[in-house]
């Protein structure tokens, strides 16, 4: 469960990225939509306290502050918008193992978990390669694996389907649908949102415009256009 009370984020003293955000998210899959620069990534980053914010955030009832930061980061896994930031070891295998080592897992357990995750995401052939040699989509998959392998209770994903081809995207959607965690996903892919989201959160200029049932928001052409978005493809045709 994620609670945000009157959260504000201001960059460089004058760019208001989040403006009085109040949110309450229970178990389920939530997709945040909004045009470029509307503050979606910033919202995710505040939840792991990467950017400075004012206000109050609680995750599963635990207050997000310096004292509980470690505890919360163990609970929350975040997949960043740019996979390059997430891959920093010499081999993809080491990258995926990185989080597990920090969780003090035994060597055997680490190997087992990595084996499971690479089978699930079908990236076994990437394990021994260096991230410099991978394509955008392959990097994205590896970055996703490196977070999922830690089995966080809450998953934050910043544009998980960007860089992916249609098969990779489908794999991602199926994964999200099969996942029983609290998930907060940022995406420009409204068709995916339609498939996976329990609720949609519409963000514009750092403010939450609306939080409601998926279809209600995604079928509302006027609302979407007002905030710089378009209807999902499947509704455009029909």
């Amino acid at each position: 469960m994620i609670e945000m009370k009157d959260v504000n984020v201001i960059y460089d003293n004058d760019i208001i990225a989040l403006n009085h955000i109040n949110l309450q998210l229970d178990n389920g899959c939530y997709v945040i939509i909004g045009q470029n620069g509307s503050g979606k990534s910033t919202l995710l980053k505040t939840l792991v306290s990467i950017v400075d914010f004012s206000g109050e955030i609680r995750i599963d009832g635990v207050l997000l502050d310096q004292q509980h930061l470690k505890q919360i980061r163990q609970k929350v896994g975040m997949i960043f918008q740019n996979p390059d930031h997430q891959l920093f070891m010499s081999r993809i295998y080491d990258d995926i193992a990185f989080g597990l080592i920090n969780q003090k897992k035994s060597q055997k357990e680490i190997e087992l978990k990595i084996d499971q995750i690479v089978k699930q995401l079908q990236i076994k052939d990437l394990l021994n390669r260096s991230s410099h040699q991978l394509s955008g989509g392959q990097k994205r998959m590896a970055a996703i694996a490196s977070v999922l392998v830690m089995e966080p209770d809450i998953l934050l994903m910043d544009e998980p389907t960007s860089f992916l081809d249609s098969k990779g995207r489908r794999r991602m959607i199926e994964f999200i649908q099969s996942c029983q965690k609290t998930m907060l996903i940022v995406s420009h892919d409204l068709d995916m949102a339609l498939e996976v989201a329990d609720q949609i959160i519409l963000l514009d200029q750092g403010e939450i415009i609306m939080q409601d049932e998926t279809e209600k928001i995604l079928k509302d052409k006027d609302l979407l256009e007002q905030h710089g978005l378009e209807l999902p493809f499947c509704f455009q045709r029909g």
Partner: protein
Amino acid sequence: MNKLFTSLMNMSQVDEYGHLDTFIHHLHPLVKMMMTTMILVCLISTKSIIELLIYLFLVLFITKCCQIPIKQLLKRGLLGLPLCLCLGLSYLLLNQNKMYFYGFYINEGIILCLLLFLKTFLCLSLAYLLITTTSFDELTCELVFLKVPAIFVLQLVMTYRYIYLLLEEATLMARSYLLRSPNDQAIQMKDMGSFVGHLLVGSMKQSQDIYHCMKCRGFDIEITYQHHQKINSEDVFIMMIGVGILMMIKVVCI
């Protein structure tokens, strides 16, 4: 130009020989670290060309044992050449004293220049050998084991990553610059200021993002790098042989 970029990119991949299967690769990281330090101290403290030539032979021998192509070693070792040429030339020009050298009278400047050159090359080569045969993470684990304060180890780890990030960022930026200005062979002087500025700010921001990502996955120097390996008797034996060889070189050359 493409060739330059490719070689720059390759430079950032020192671990390409890291997965080879030689006995030096399997040596205990701590042994390699200590041996490197000892050779470094020996070669920095000497003033004898002959001794340096012996170390040169030793380094080449180790390179052969590691199955690393000598050409790769030369590429890295000669990186410091421009800097030491500047210093060396000033020796040549300023120091006109004659000295006796194995039956000949030659300029002291030449000897000093040669010494400087050999030492720089050897230091860089040794560092390269250590890094290629030992993964940086293994080295870090040993530093943590030796109880080096976390803040220093962290600096080292982040600096190591930052250098590669900077190289990569520079290569990418230069490529996109040249693609958009097909008539230029290199980055123009007038754009150099903003190029370098952007490079530094951009790469710093990126390294900050990477650090955040690491933190989000529970990074903590003392936890992440706690896999100290046990030293076994073979390692000790090889270390003793190494120390013996170094002592012999010192004795012979004195």
